[in-house]
């Protein structure tokens, strides 16, 4: 009887203790390969045409729009499709908040505003020639097909207007582009295509997002388990699935908690969530720990554990930007200083006359908070207290009670940036231009703000100051292989918990009742002391022989 119960108890313990022996058989996942397979681009993988065989693409082409005309000659509907997407419109009206968003309108806390600076900033507009308000958004031939589809790596863009000589010098002396060769090379977008702009948001490599850098062009799987060139080798569009040139995965309307999962086969072509592939119970239920992890999915974004640090892979991100120091010149000429050596051995600028001071960070631990996917932007129209200590550029909401919320990782970007001290608004700064008001080249911020505001008929008090602004960047790329994911103890610990600042939850290991711990310790300690004293009294008491 003893043996049978013992055997039963042992088998129960063994069954519960097995922590995924089956999963380890395929460790590491995905299997590493020697030669890189082609990038996986999602449902459109394959294709039915070889563009190098098309006479239409033989050229010669004298300009980008000529190539576009050739593309549209076969892809008859693509122009109409493309013009609806945000890469073209740079405009997005949030249906929930009614806020007018999009690069065309927003103010950020990096280079602050594209509006009025399109001559420079619209290099990353997927079109040709947007330099001011006169750009024709209805002309299909203005679409730039090549920037997303060419695969030679020789294609590049330059500013749409010449700007100040102080800046335009940066873009001189580039080799001419062989447009026919570039046109013949078109394929589904590779990581490098998207990365042309998305890796360089904020004015440089990984400056803005922290989780999108040039390190992802050919990353090892340890940097990103999906994009790893030695692993799955996913292109961006493998997750950012595309329907008629509209992509899933919006930063203006984030799906913080996907409750639908994979859906039926062939469905879910509308989201870029982890759950749309991995389902709602992503950890194989072969151990108690995995069962508990699947339960965590309701409260914790996958990214929180699976992206233990961002700005990995040797490319730093900017975490602090100080516009107050901008405008210093040497003999009237702007300059820049290097001062940060990043992981891949490259120097980064820590000061630029045109932008101010930068602070970099690498392998950063994110900030964690409840997030329901809804950002509330401080736009050019938002009024705030001019004496406020700091302003959230894109504040967000979320809580344990909100069923759409989960705990997400964020990059927190802190900046001192110019604002209208008199009216309590952010400002459009006229940075780029050939005139004598453009800040880049003339370094007079009062003048450049006045023009930036006046150009769009906006009220400006004439007095500018600097205010601290915070922007929040949900971290979702650079997903580490699972063996590098956070462990339970990284959050469930009394001190230095990753989630130390997260409210609204009781977390065993992190949380405890101070009084109960004190009383309990006194009780146990008191008992120990009591039995020791009791024992000592017995030991030293006179003993009566024969009794006990």
């Amino acid at each position, binding site marked *: *009887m*003893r043996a049978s*119960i*013992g055997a*039963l*108890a042992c088998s*129960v*313990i063994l069954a*519960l*203790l097995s*922590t995924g022996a089956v999963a380890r058989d395929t460790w590491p996942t995905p299997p590493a390969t020697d030669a890189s397979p082609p990038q996986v681009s999602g449902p459109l993988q394959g294709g039915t045409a070889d563009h190098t065989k098309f006479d239409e693409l033989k050229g010669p082409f004298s300009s980008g729009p000529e190539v576009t005309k050739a593309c549209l000659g076969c892809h008859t509907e693509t122009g109409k499709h493309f013009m609806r997407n945000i890469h073209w419109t740079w405009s997005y009206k949030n249906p929930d908040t009614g806020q007018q968003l999009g690069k065309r309108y927003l103010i950020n806390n990096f280079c602050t505003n594209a509006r009025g600076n399109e001559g420079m900033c619209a290099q990353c507009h997927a079109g040709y020639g947007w330099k001011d308000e006169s750009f024709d958004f209805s002309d299909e031939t203005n679409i730039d097909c090549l920037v997303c589809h060419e695969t030679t790596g020789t294609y590049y863009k330059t500013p749409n207007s010449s700007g100040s000589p102080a800046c335009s010098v940066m873009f001189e002396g580039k080799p001419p582009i062989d447009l026919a060769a570039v046109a013949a090379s078109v394929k589904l977008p590779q990581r490098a295509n998207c990365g042309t702009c998305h890796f360089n948001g904020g004015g440089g490599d990984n400056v803005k997002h922290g989780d999108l850098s040039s390190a992802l062009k050919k990353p090892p799987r340890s940097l990103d388990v999906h994009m790893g060139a030695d692993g799955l080798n996913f292109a961006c569009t493998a997750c950012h699935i595309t329907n008629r040139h509209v992509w899933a995965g919006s930063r203006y309307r984030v799906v913080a908690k996907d409750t639908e999962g994979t859906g039926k086969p062939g469905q879910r072509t509308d989201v870029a969530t982890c759950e749309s592939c991995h389902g709602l119970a992503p950890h194989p239920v072969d*151990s*108690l*720990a995995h069962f*508990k992890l699947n*339960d965590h999915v*309701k*409260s914790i974004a996958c990214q929180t554990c699976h992206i233990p640090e961002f700005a990995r892979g040797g490319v730093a991100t900017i975490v602090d930007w100080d516009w107050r120091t901008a405008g210093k010149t040497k003999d009237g000429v702007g300059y820049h200083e290097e001062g940060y050596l990043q992981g891949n051995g490259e120097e980064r600028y820590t000061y630029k006359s045109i932008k101010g001071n930068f602070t970099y960070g690498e392998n950063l631990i994110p900030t964690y908070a409840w997030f329901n996917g809804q950002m509330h932007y401080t736009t050019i129209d938002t009024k705030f207290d001019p004496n406020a200590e700091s302003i959230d550029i894109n504040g967000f909401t979320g809580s*344990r009670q909100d*069923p759409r919320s989960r705990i997400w990782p964020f990059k927190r970007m802190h900046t001192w940036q110019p604002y209208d001290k008199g009216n309590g608004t952010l400002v459009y700064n006229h940075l780029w231009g050939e005139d004598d008001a453009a800040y880049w080249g003339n370094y007079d911020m009062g003048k450049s703000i006045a023009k930036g505001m006046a150009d769009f008929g906006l009220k400006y008090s004439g007095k500018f100051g600097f205010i601290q602004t915070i922007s929040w960047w949900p971290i979702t790329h650079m997903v580490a292989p699972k063996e590098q994911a956070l*462990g*339970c*103890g990284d959050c*469930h*610990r*009394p001190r230095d918990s990753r989630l130390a600042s997260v409210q*609204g*939850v*009781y977390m*065993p*290991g*992190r*949380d*405890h*009742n101070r009084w*109960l*711990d004190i*009383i*309990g*310790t006194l*009780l*146990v300690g008191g*008992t*120990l002391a009591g*039995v020791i004293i*009791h*024992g000592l*009294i*017995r030991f030293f*008491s*006179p*003993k*009566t022989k024969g*009794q*006990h």
Partner: protein
Amino acid sequence: MATRRVKIFSLFERFWHWSQMLLIVVLLITGFGLHGFHHLVSFKDSVTLHTATALTLLLLWAFGTFWLFTTRSWRHFIPTVEGMWGVFRYYSFGIFKGERHPYRKAYWRKHNPLQALAYTMLKIVLFPAIWITGLIYLFYFAWRDLPHATEMLHGVALVHTAAAFAILTFVFIHVYMLTTGHSFRDHLMPMINGFDEVDLTPEEEAYLIKDEPENIR
């Protein structure tokens, strides 16, 4: 009235006692680790071990409870005040003077009144407090969407932890008690071989000698 060595702890009772001891020690170590008092075992392994041990203990208790009621052994745990004062007085004063323990084990009363009360309280107050809150805790995933779930979990955790402190206190006293009396060994052996000295009525003695000779020495 004769004092004889009688088997008072059956094989199952001894298996129950020692496996329960082992499980409770593991639960205390992993539990206080999860609470953050030490980091001897990783949180993940602690949770796994704590849960597995707790479920095993519940299974053991299910068997134990069944055994208690089918063998009528539960009657050993009925609280009584008879002789309580004597035992209490003994541990407070008499023990220091080398007095003899006032309680004599009887065949159907193998615990002294203080012991019986302590074990009964453990069985009907502390153990239910910890296993009921433990199960509620374990099944948090099933009720996490109720309003005020976080506050309720906090309360559940509070009771669970408080009961754990109380059980740890019991363990210290329980083990210390083994050092009183004849010797540590004399207290320990009955729970190993089952036999202890018991006051038997002539009828009990006669019955055991005739019908259960293997249970009397």
